């Protein structure tokens, strides 16, 4: 559904690399919060249900279908994480407007 980026992203720091790197950090921060949320919920569910054995997570081997899903999700995640390095806006605007345009 998302449009292709159409123009360079705005720059706020003297070195545009800082703008882009900050984008990576910001995306990473959002993803970390998504994981923190899921982990907290998962722990609460497992605790309530007493349904997991010690060491079960470390011993778990994903099935083919799950593995493919994990691979695809990791690929999406990496794209999302590093897209800001490209320095492209996701939306269009115009830079200056005069009073009599």
């Amino acid at each position: 559904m998302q449009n292709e980026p159409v123009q360079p992203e705005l720059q706020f720091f003297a070195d545009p690399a800082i703008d882009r790197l900050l984008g990576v950090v910001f995306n990473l921060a959002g993803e970390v919060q998504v994981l923190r949320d899921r982990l907290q919920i998962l722990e609460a569910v497992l605790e309530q249900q007493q349904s997991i054995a010690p060491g079960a997570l470390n011993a778990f081997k994903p099935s083919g279908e799950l593995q493919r899903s994990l691979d695809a999700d990791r690929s999406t995640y990496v794209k999302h994480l590093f897209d800001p390095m490209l320095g492209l806006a996701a939306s269009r605007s115009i830079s200056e407007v005069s009073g009599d345009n």
Partner: protein
Amino acid sequence: MTTERGYAANHAFLVEARKYWMSEVYGALRHEYSVLQGGRDITSSDQVAQIFDGNATYAFYAWMERHIQKQRYAGRWGFVEQLAPLPEQEAARDKLRLDPAVVIPGYYSRVDTHQHPGNLTGADNAGVVYKASAQGTQPGATAGYELHERFASLVEGYGTFRAILDMGCGFGKSALPIASRTPGGRVVGIDLSVPCLEVAAAEASAAGLGNLSYEQADLRHSGHGAGEFDLVTSTMVLHELDVPALREMLVESYRVLAPGGTAIHLDFQVDDPFLTFLYHGHGLRNNEPYMPVINALDMAAELEGAGFTGVEIHPFEETPGATAANWPKWRFPWATFVARKPAA
């Protein structure tokens, strides 16, 4: 592996980030300004821009404003990717009149307003996306549409109206509370965006408001007759227009008002140099490029130029206490613009 929980968690993070930005980062910026100002008499936003040239806190302030909003709309967790269009059965067509002949004007189509990819006339989910975005624009103030309820209450204080035209109504966030307070009158909302109008009509239907309907129309040429309304309103519309469109809108609003009718617009106005600098910067960062030129206009003169008299411009409190001088958070410089069409 996109999930509803992941979407909610990411947006909760963005809301928290925005709260931090509008309080902590804004507070730090304001403090630095007071130090850097050094007792000088600052009279223009250009002077403020010079003060902040190369300033790291301002760079972070500006970056966060731009990119928190960008993340809300775009990317894997963004509204545009995540939100489905309104289901067809909820579109409430009986409350909505579309006009395929409406041409989207250039001032509107050139910009993805609010950093909304594809803008409000793009994808089918544009109305749902805008509604989701509007609920978190200013956490703590506009969430839950408190602002629009307060505006509707203010409008109610100006008289009893029987025919109301809400120009640039969006998804009806002001038209709906105005209609709910006007049981003896009718309210018509007009907008260019079909996806927004569909959301507006669905909400009017869900609220059981028989006196509220929506039409696709250009606010410069509403299609309504001269003198048809006794009140014209708009909310957050004036600053989204370029100057020619604004002037045409004011002329059109004057035309459709009956003699003695009232116009009440909720928008922004600021002249403090520091706040003007941030407001104009917001226009750039949030893809609202007409903000600076509209803010620079003498709006009373513009209204009078369209024929209005008795112009009043007042600060508007979107939440109690927000207009106090020591308000600690960043906020939009809300203002109401009230004008009358002379009685015949």
